[in-house]
């Protein structure tokens, strides 16, 4: 049996009334888990990347528990996963271009020319060329989200984790973000595995998210 890209194994989330989440995210699918702020659903992405640790349970990414890896190895492993944090997490003192370039400059031995070429492709794909030289504070919410996604996709990862990616976006922009995260279609489904956490999912995106769950009263309920 293939190792799932992401597997939450009896992971406890939420503070008030904690829930135990067991979920296997199959490859080449877009999967979302929704829930209100108190449900703790927003922690799932952080647990997957071992930015936080759950009180019980474990999360396996491509079969590896990042929380158990030495720090250097965990940092290197995270480059295999695209991560769009809630609130974009763009560095405010860098232009959008430099934000997108940062993971490539820091985490690969590519030459500056190669990096420039890759960034140009990303910026064109995400329609950011006209604002590439601006800092995050000078562009709108949608452009910031696009830039954060471009940064998350810089290494062309197999798995993308998106935290509240559609908040405050128009339906059109949300649909574009989702399609870019999926990375196109392959014979087995989406080219990438996409894991989304948030409070809501625009109705129009429903058909493009193959598996939808909601964390309600401590239980993970399927919405398909």
């Amino acid at each position, binding site marked *: 049996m293939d190792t799932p890209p992401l597997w939450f194994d009896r992971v406890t989330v939420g503070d008030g009334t904690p829930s135990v989440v067991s979920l296997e995210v199959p490859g080449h699918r877009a999967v979302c888990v929704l829930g209100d702020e108190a449900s703790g659903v927003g922690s799932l992405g952080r647990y997957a990347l071992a930015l936080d640790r759950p009180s019980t349970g474990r999360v396996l990414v491509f079969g590896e528990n990042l929380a158990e890896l030495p720090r250097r190895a965990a940092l290197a492993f995270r480059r295999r996963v695209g*991560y769009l*944090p809630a*609130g974009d997490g763009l*560095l405010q003192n860098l232009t959008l271009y430099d934000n997108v370039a*940062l*993971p490539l400059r820091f985490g690969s031995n590519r030459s500056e020319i190669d990096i420039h070429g890759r960034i140009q492709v990303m910026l064109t794909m995400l329609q950011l060329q006209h604002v590439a030289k601006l800092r995050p504070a000078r562009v709108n919410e949608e452009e910031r989200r696009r830039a954060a996604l471009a940064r998350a996709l810089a290494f062309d990862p197999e798995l993308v984790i998106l935290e509240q990616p559609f908040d405050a976006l128009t339906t059109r922009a949300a649909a574009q973000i989702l399609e870019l995260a999926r990375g196109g279609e392959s014979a087995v489904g989406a080219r990438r595995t996409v894991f989304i956490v948030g409070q809501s999912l625009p109705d129009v995106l429903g058909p493009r998210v193959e598996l939808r769950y909601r964390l309600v009263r401590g239980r993970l309920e399927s919405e398909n």
Partner: protein
Amino acid sequence: MLAPIAVVGTHVARQVARVGALARFSFSAFQAWGTLPAAGRRVARRVFLNQLWFTALQAIPLAIVLSSILSFLLISQAVRELGRIGAVELIGTLIVVAIVRELGPLLTALAVAGRSGTAIAAELATNKVMGEVDALEGMGIDPVHYLVLPRFAAAIVSVFSLTILFDAVAILAGLVAALANGMSAGHYFDIVLRSLAFRDAGVTLVKGLVFGTIIGTIPSFHGLAVRRAATEVPIASSHAVVGSILAIFLCSALFVAVS
């Protein structure tokens, strides 16, 4: 009855824990020199140069003003007062011991701590509050490599260089003061150079390195110690500058005690 003891005990334990955390952080910052990936050096160098611009180059006018005023006032008074009792030769000791060895590194470090220490703490705290530190971690970039190491290195280089500048300007301002009070340039340099030992210059430079390390470490530690509340940013800046000043004075006293 035990309540006051418990309060004091809790406070002491918290402070000890904080010092322990600071020591661990400092160790990890030193350790980061060796683990910075080759690809990251280019980016870290760029951040380092930016920091150097702000911490060292932009602080040059401040260092020159502080140094020249201090030295001019001190040497003017000294030439006048010591001249009355025929002990004008002592201005050499005054320049070397008081300014070059003690006040030069101390005032330079205090100026940099006040100017750049607060900026480092506020910037890193804002990075943390805005989720930028988590985003770096999520991209596989160690925040110590990207945020701390360049600031740490820039603080050391800056304080070290500014201390040399401070002392050089102090000696020149002392010359102006001496000339203004009727002493010849030859006599002034003769007195100063006779008093200046290699050891004094060495102590000054070591102090510059140590104070630079303090300013590179303590503000970074307080900046990254905030959680997610914007209200913590000014608190972190305040803790950073107070902690740095305290550490600089303690180290200065330690230097006097051991040298």
